[in-house]
Each structure stands twice: as C-alpha cells, then as structure tokens.
C-alpha cells in the first residue's frame, strides 16, 4: 500500500443500470459453491451412493425392507432404485433444507442484504437468481445421487434384467429408461420442497425453523402417508410423488397416480415459490426486524399452504371419485395373482422346467384379512392369501399360501408360507446350484385408484 495511490476516477461504471438475472445467478452460484458444506454435499452425493450400492451388492444381507433391495444381487439397476427410495424419504428433504432453506437466510445471518440490494438494485432479480441458483445446486445433487448409484450398481453387479413390481422382467435397456424416468419424476416433489424451503427461508430468516422447514414438512407428509388416510388425501400431498414412481415398474405402468403426484407437486412448488417471492418483494430492508415474525409466518406462509392442501384434496377426490383407503380385496387378489404368475415363470426357467405362459397358468388368489368377520380391505399385516394355478396337462391345481403386509400407500410384501418346493424356502435348487427363490418373498403394489387395474 502506498498513501499516494491513484484513486479510481468517478466515471460511470460499465454495466451501469440493473444487473441482469444471468449475472446475479452466477453471483449466487459462486456464493453457494464457495461454502464448504455445499462442496461436501456435492462430493457426498456423487460418491457415497455408488460406494454404498457397490458395497451392499457384494454382501449376502440385502436391504429387503427397501423397494428393489432384494434384487440388488441380481441386477445393477436395483441399486439406483434403492437409493431413490431412500432419497425420497431422507436425502432430498435434507438436501433441499440445506440449500433452498438457507439461500435467503444466509444473507440475514451475514448481514449482507443491503450490500446485495445496492449492488443488484432489484429485489425481483435477486429472488429469481437465488431460486435458480439453489435449484441448480439441488439438481446437481440429485443428478449425483442418480448417476453415482447407477454406476456403482452396474459396476458391481452388471447390466442385467430387472424384476418389476408385478414380477415381469424388464430388459436392461427398458430398466435403464424406467430408472431414469423414475428419478426424473421425483424432481417434481423435490421442486415442491425447494419452494417450501424458499418460503421458509424468506419468512423465518435466521430462525433455525427456516432451515428445517422442508425437512419438517417432508417428515409430516411421510407420517401422513403412513396413516390410514383416505386415498384422496394421500394423493393430494406432494410427497405422494416420492412413492408413485413405483407405478413405472408394473406392466402396464400405473400412470394415473404418478401423473396426479407430479401435478400436485408442481402446483405446490409454484404456489410456495410465488408466496416466497411476494413476501420477499414486500420486505423492508431498512428495518432489520422485518423478518421472523411468527404471526406473519403463520398468516402468509402456513395458511395458504394448508388452504392449498384442502383444495387439492377436494380436486383429487372429485376427479378420481375415490374414497376410502383404495386397498380392496379384489385389488389385492388381482395384484398378487398377476405377480405370482410372472415370478412362477421365472422360477420355472431357473429350474429348467418346460416353459409356461401366464395365460396357461391362470393364476388366481383368494385373500382374507384378519378375522372373517372383518371386511377384507385397507392396509395391514394380517392379509392371508391362497394362490392357485394350473399347469398344462396336469389335472391337479397348485396352491401356495402367502402372508401379506400391505401398507397404506399400496405397497405390499408377500411372504411365502409353503409349500416348501414352491414358496416356503428362500433357495431353490437349480441345475447350476442353489439360487434365490423368487416366489419366497417379493414386493408388489396395489394401485389405489379405482380406475386402474391393480
């Protein structure tokens, strides 16, 4: 430093006027990426899933309680779906909390709002840039989760066919497409959480609740999905889209619930983001206390979203005409029989027996729930089913027993109860040695909407 340094002449700076959204967006990205926690998250999302999938795929104990977890030894395409299920429950809500839930609050914490406003001179552009920058980082994280788990799975297990949720086989190419589509579908509920994160960050400022809001809302919605709520309420929550991608892995795909979930999520995303924008533009930046009011948070942040939930429930209920849990005896029987037929063919191939088609098998299921005095409908782990089938040129009818645990979101786990040669033991003896018995335990799902076949 020299005391005689020449002062920059006070001529108009180049680029005078309002700063463009693109420049502001780059500025926000620089700030986000310079944070060590964001760098750490990017690194973790691009590395950890791959290592996890590769590691688990080498073990004999599989995460069978997670959808597609029991197929991780069979195909590399199961890994990204296991990570997708985990992400919808934990990773994505937490990631959106850390990124979107903090993108406005960080300026409050650092006391940089005034600096930013003087530099950019447009609150509207600041909001747009912040929303876009946080969305970019979240998309980068989601892409990392998907890419890393896919690479890990394919590298550790290989590019093999994937067994769908109704037991049909997806060729590797089809499995790749469906896995990619499933990850794309969960972007919609992720956007909804981003919107909620932006809203929390704007309304609650430095309060820790602002940061935690997406995670708290996601947790509340998950709890709601676990309760025996009417199916219209279930489908009207954005978190439904974290579940409804399951429908892509049946034949035909269960697109109705999936589309409803995506549309609802996008409506939530737009509404929450618009509310956040409105509140941000009304903020008084000369008054440092003009943030964090609990009354305001409830009045302008929470109540509109509660109202939106009510409206979406009404719209979904009237559009689908669905009431109750959506899980009926007929749907469970149809779903189980269909899946059993597909998996029976797989077992037949394993055992090197003569090929048989689903049409020839004429599989059917008879299910009851708990006591015979109780109506066979709704979720529960007390479903008991007897599956029957026929083989060509065989007079006798084959039967097998299953215990079903049906959860309120329509997913079920079928646990074979015998006979041992069919579904009572976890291994089958094949000409090449013992192999996992596909009929022993398997996952399936019941479509909740009455308009589709389960």
């Amino acid at each position, binding site marked *: *430093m*020299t005391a005689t*340094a020449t002062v920059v002449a*006070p001529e108009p*700076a180049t*680029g005078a006027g309002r700063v463009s959204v693109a420049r502001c967006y780059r500025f926000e990205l*620089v700030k986000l990426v310079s944070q060590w926690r964001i760098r750490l998250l990017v690194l973790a999302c691009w590395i950890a899933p791959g290592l996890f999938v590769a590691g688990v795929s080498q073990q004999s104990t599989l995460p069978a309680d997670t959808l597609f977890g029991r197929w991780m030894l069979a195909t590399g395409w199961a890994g990204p779906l296991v990570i997708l299920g985990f992400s919808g429950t934990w990773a994505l809500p937490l990631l959106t909390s850390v990124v979107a839930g903090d993108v406005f609050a960080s300026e409050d914490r650092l006391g*940089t709002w005034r600096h930013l406003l*003087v530099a950019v001179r447009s609150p509207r552009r600041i909001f747009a840039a912040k929303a876009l920058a946080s969305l970019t980082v979240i998309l980068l994280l989601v892409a990392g989760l998907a890419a890393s788990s896919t690479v890990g799975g394919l590298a550790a297990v290989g590019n093999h066919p994937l067994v769908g949720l109704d037991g049909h086989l997806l060729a590797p190419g089809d499995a790749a497409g469906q896995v990619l589509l499933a990850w794309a579908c969960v972007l919609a509920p992720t956007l909804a959480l981003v919107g909620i994160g932006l809203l929390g960050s704007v309304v609650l400022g430095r309060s820790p609740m602002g940061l935690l809001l997406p995670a708290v809302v996601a947790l509340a919605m998950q709890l709601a999905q676990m309760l025996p709520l009417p199916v219209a309420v279930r489908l009207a929550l954005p978190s439904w889209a974290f579940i409804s991608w399951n429908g892509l892995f049946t034949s035909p795909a269960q697109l109705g619930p999936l589309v409803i979930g995506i549309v609802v999520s996008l409506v939530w995303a737009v509404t929450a983001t618009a509310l956040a924008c409105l509140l941000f533009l009304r903020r008084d930046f000369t008054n440092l206390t003009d943030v964090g009011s609990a009354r305001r948070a409830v009045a302008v942040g929470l109540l509109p979203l509660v109202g939106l939930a009510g409206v979406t429930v009404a719209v979904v209920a009237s559009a689908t005409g669905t009431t109750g849990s959506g899980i009926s005896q007929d749907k469970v029987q149809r779903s189980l029989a269909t899946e059993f037929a597909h998996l029976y063919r797989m077992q037949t191939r394993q055992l090197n027996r003569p090929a048989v088609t689903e049409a020839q098998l004429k599989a059917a299921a008879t299910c009851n729930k708990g006591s015979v005095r109780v109506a066979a409908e709704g979720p529960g782990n007390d479903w008991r089913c007897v599956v029957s089938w026929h083989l060509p040129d065989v007079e006798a009818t084959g039967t097998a027993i299953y215990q079903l645990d049906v959860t309120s979101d329509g997913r079920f786990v079928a646990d074979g109860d015998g006979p041992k040669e069919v579904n009572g033991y976890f291994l089958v003896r094949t000409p090449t040695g013992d192999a996992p018995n596909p009929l022993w335990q398997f996952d399936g799902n019941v479509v909740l909407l009455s308009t589709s076949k389960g």
Partner: protein
Amino acid sequence: MDSLRAIRARGISKCFGDVVALDGIDLDVAQGQIHGLVGPNGAGKTTLLGLLLGLAVADSGRLEILGTPVGRTFAAPDGVAGFVDGPGLYPSLTARQNLAALAALRGRDARTAGIDEVLDQVGLTDVADDRTRGFSLGMRQRLGLAAALLTRPRLLVLDEPSNGLDPAGKKHVHGVLTRLAAEGTTVVLSSHRMDDLEALCSEVTILATGRVVFSGPLSKLAAENRELDYRLLTSDPQTARRLAAGAPGVRVVDDAVGRQGAEVLVVRALVPALDQLVARLVESGIALRELAPVVSPLEAAFLALTEQQQQAGTPPQETGPKAQETEARREDAEARQETEAQSQEAGR
C-alpha cells in the same frame, strides 16, 4: 445550481409503523463535497442513508440523487455506492473473490476491473487472498470501501466508515475519501467520531429525532454556536490566568470543573472574545504554545443541539439566512406536495 447538487431532498418523511424515523427532512449536498451526517442513536441517520442507497422509499417528500428523481420503487440510481450498518462481505470468499464477484455482477472482467488498485488504495493488498471470515472489523470496513470504489461511484454513501480502524487504516480511508472528493465524487458519511467528521467534512447535517437541527458548513456551526471551553498552554500561566480573568467575555473555568493545573489554563468564551484574549497575551509578551477547544465545536454543537431538541421535543428555532432558507424550502416542499396531490386527484 441543481446540476451541481448530488443530493436534493425536500420534506422527506419515513415511518416504520408508529415510529417516525424521518420527519420532513430537507438536505442539499453539492457535488464533490464530503458531507457528514451526525445525530444520536435513533435520529434517523441510517434510514436517510438507506433512502440514498435505494434500500427504501420515502413515505412522502421529494428526493433527487445525481440529478435523477428517485421513484417509488426500490433501486439506487446509477452511480451510487456504499454501505449502511457495515459492509456486506461473504466470509467464504477471499477479499479478492468478494471484489471479483461484485465486478462480475456489474458485468466487468475481474482482470480489468481494477481490483488490485482498490485493494491497494485501502491497504489490503497483503491480505487480498485471505478469506474474509478472519477479517477484523477495520479490515472489513476497508474492504467494504474497496467494494464501493470498484463501482466507480459518483455518490458514495458510508455508514460509520471509521469503525474499528487503527490509525493507519484511518489514514488510508481519509486519504481515499479526500482524493475521491477532489476528483468530483460526492461522499456522504455518518459517524459518531467528531474528529473524523471535522477532518473530512466541509459541511455537516445534524439530525435529532428524525429532523434536521443544523445543516451547513462546520465554520458556520462554530460561529453560530455558544461559548466553548478552550485549553491554553502559555509561557507564563500565572499572568495569563490574571489577564484571562480580567478579559471581557472570558471566564476562567478550570477551577470550577476541577481541571486545575499549574501550566494549563481553561477558559470559556465566544470566538471574538477569545481572539481578543490571545491578542492581549501576545501584547503582554506571553508566548502561546497551545490553543485548542476542550470539546470540538462540532461535538459541542452536537451535544447542545440534540439536548435542546430532546428537551423541547421540537427543532430549535433557527435564525438568520439559514433559517430563512430552510423556511423557504419547507414552503417550497409543501407547495409541491400540494400540487402533486392535486395532480393525483385530477388523474383519478
């Protein structure tokens, strides 16, 4: 004359709920001037600086900055830079990265934006590549000034720029501000450091409870003000004390306030009476080694005016040409507001 005014404010008012932050503020700041803003806490300084930076809009009144009327939307006019309540810095970025990000935001290439030059001006070259997380308050202040300089402002608005500065840092900042003003940049700064303001500012505005209680040159403030205490160090303290005691308009106050000292004489007087005393001392062959106000004229005026304001609850009655000018401005503002109201009514 308007073309030479960087700021022209008439009847600016701003309320936050029931709190009146600014109450009919009039302000004129000439281009190339360093203008000080003084006032007790809660006087409205930060609110006024916020208006100048485009962080808020006034509830009523007219504001022109650099010849451009300020509208009803948030936005600082072109050529305005600065900070209030401390500079905004991102702790995860280095000093250089903070400035580069700001330059990029303004559409300028970081390599040609003059980042090294402004860092050099504020004395932060040595820590240019350190993250600002570990910066002291003084370093943050200097980097905030560098960030403002990077935009090549024509109006620089600074809130307490000397906070946390060591003597070397203060020298850097004063040097930069003085040179900027010499080259045509207008600087408006608020400070509680009267010595800073006296060293830098040609004019000051004193605010109290949202109103202007004085606005004008420092010399005028001293001349308009009441008696001040002066500290005299002479070659013959005994004789000097005797002469001071007998001088018209001069009171020896050191005994009264307990500042008794063999060498130091403290007297209370208006400037003309003090001038006469100095002449008599010199005529008597007494060497005057030191003469300085015990409290600076600005600080004394600040204390007197703000205390008066708080006691009265209204601005003190101004007299003379300044008061007439202020009254004329108020009438001007009121007439303009009335015209605007009529226009709006007609527009409906």
